[in-house]
């Protein structure tokens, strides 16, 4: 992206001035190098989002922003229902409530190294992964609706985890306002055997080592110390979310026309929040959030089973579970006035600062854990929400590195076997059903996650707490 098209607000904040139909400016948080590397489509898409009715303050793009569908991936936008604001299926994405969950093991590297190969094989065997895989739980319609209402609570009530887990999940493990009736029979059918499955693409389960701690106090609050081993799970609402996204995208295309909303891009399909379609989507999307929370809870149970057998000393307490494809009704202060806003985060992580009332007591002083995923050979990061991010980005931060290379380019640049062997030589074990899938997700296909996190830290969106490096990666 050409920086001459932007107004430089600071070393890490760049503004697209309102033009044509834009109702508010768009702000991109990134350093100059990341901006120059950013796709021009991010400019176009952020400007398009800024033209939607009822948008508040600005459309925001995080340091990992890249070309998405309608909204950029790494995009944040808040809408006010009282000002004709909209909700957009494209602003949430197909993989509703895709997110990251991190578990603390209480173990150090040497304990894992002693059983690393067995552990990698056991995790790969126990956790359904890849195209066509199914979970052990088949849900009938009654159980499906109970799951869509209950989220992680549903899973815990059925023995997949404990009540202690729930306090460490966004929304306490259950998204209020879920409406299973707004979820089609097709979406439910698509999900019938997908609870407890990882999926494919950029989804993964990793055993990781804490290789650096940047903020000792926050790390202590999060239960992290250098040399600790943790487990990160990255996946979402599976087929149910994909089907809801597909169906409501089309319904919203018609709804936008009915409401007289001009769409510069059909993928921006949206409906007024105060409309039947808008309300039904919110109910269905919240049900999909619960599906994602239940999914990650069941996978956690499977992980605990493997560790109980191979590393019985592991604690496997939940650090936190946070989603990065959502639309949530939140209270934010705008120009000194507290307002209820529908905050879309598409490939962006909620990042509440210290003392936010919705945070678990353990994180009140430090701020919310912000979990940033890597890709096999690259690092992941744990950050903490800041007070400043409230005014910068409606308390939002980045979610990952973002791709720098398409899947086609990646699969032509690497062979899966070569990637697996090179990572094994670095002590990282990969288990995946698909060599091509591994090649498409090769670490080199992604931007430098350290640079993205540094930009988020410098911009004040979140502050660095710990850096994690993978030891075992189960890849879809």
């Amino acid at each position, binding site marked *: 992206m050409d920086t001459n098209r932007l107004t430089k607000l600071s070393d890490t904040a760049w503004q697209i001035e309102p033009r044509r139909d834009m109702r508010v400016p768009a702000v991109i948080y990134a350093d100059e190098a990341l901006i120059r590397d950013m*796709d021009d*489509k991010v400019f176009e898409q952020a400007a398009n989002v800024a033209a939607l009715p009822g948008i508040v303050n600005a459309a925001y793009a995080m340091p990992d922003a*890249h*070309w*998405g*569908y*309608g909204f950029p*991936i790494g995009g944040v936008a808040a809408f006010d229902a009282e000002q004709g604001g909209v909700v957009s299926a494209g602003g949430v*994405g*197909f*993989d509703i409530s895709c997110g990251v969950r991190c578990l603390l093991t209480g173990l150090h590297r040497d304990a894992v190294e002693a059983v690393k190969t067995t552990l990698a094989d056991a995790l790969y065997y126990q956790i359904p992964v*890849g*195209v*066509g*895989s*199914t979970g052990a739980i088949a849900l009938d319609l009654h159980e499906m609706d109970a799951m869509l209402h209950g989220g992680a609570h549903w899973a815990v009530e059925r023995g997949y985890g404990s009540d202690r887990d729930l306090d460490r999940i966004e929304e306490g493990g259950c998204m209020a306002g879920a409406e299973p009736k707004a979820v089609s029979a*097709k979406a439910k*059918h*698509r999900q*019938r055997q997908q609870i407890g499955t990882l*999926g*494919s*693409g950029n989804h993964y389960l990793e055993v990781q080592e804490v290789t650096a701690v940047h903020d000792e106090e926050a790390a202590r609050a999060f239960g992290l110390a250098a040399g600790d081993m943790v487990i990160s799970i990255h996946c979402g609402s599976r*087929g149910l979310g*994909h*089907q809801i*996204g*597909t169906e409501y*995208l*089309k319904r919203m*295309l018609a709804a936008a026309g009915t409401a007289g909303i001009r769409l510069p*891009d*059909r*993928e921006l*399909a949206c409906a007024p929040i105060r409309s039947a379609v808008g309300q039904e989507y919110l109910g269905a999307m919240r049900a999909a959030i619960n599906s994602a929370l239940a999914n990650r809870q069941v996978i956690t149970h499977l992980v605990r089973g493997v560790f109980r057998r191979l590393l019985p000393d592991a604690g496997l307490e939940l650090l936190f579970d946070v989603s990065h494809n959502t639309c949530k009704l939140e209270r934010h202060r705008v120009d000194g006035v507290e307002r209820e806003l529908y905050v879309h985060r598409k490939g962006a992580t909620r990042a509440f600062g210290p003392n936010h009332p919705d945070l678990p007591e353990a994180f009140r002083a430090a701020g919310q854990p912000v979990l940033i995923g890597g890709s096999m050979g690259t690092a992941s990061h744990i950050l903490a929400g800041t007070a400043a991010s409230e005014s910068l980005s409606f308390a939002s931060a980045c979610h990952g590195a*973002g*791709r720098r290379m*398409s*899947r*086609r*380019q990646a*699969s032509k640049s690497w062979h899966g076997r070569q990637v697996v062997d090179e990572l094994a030589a670095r002590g990282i074990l990969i288990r995946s*059903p*698909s*060599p*091509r*899938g591994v090649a*498409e997700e090769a670490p080199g296909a992604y931007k430098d996650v350290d640079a993205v996190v540094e930009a988020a830290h410098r911009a004040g969106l979140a502050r660095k707490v710990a850096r994690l490096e993978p030891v075992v990666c189960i890849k*879809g």
Partner: protein
Amino acid sequence: MEERTATVNKWEHFSHGADIGIRGIGASPAQAFEQAALALTAVVTDPACVRPGAEIAISCADDDPELLFVDWLNAVIYEMAVRGMLFSRYRVTIDGGRLAGTATGETVDAARHQPAVEPKGATYTELEVARRGDGQWIAQCIIDV
């Protein structure tokens, strides 16, 4: 750009930042839709590896040819997901805004197909159904994976 040619009909992939673009090219919109569906299969695995076993009927309707195209692809993605199948042969007829088609294939065999990635949905991004200057029809969009 990877492509396969069968007389005048062919499919190809094109790049998108995070995901993948599929394009079908044919003598008619129906043939372009068939070829695009093959490109969809090729996002997951080599269509040549998929044995043509069970035939699944698919139908959808929309007066807008581009929305009909997305509906067709999403119907194929749905059948792939709920049946755990991959398809290597597609047949499409279009009458006005109504599409009737079949997808023929087999159950996913992880060892043989080594499926790379699961399509989540067909998007409206880079969506186009149009006749080119050479008289061939193209049907294309980005698939979210």
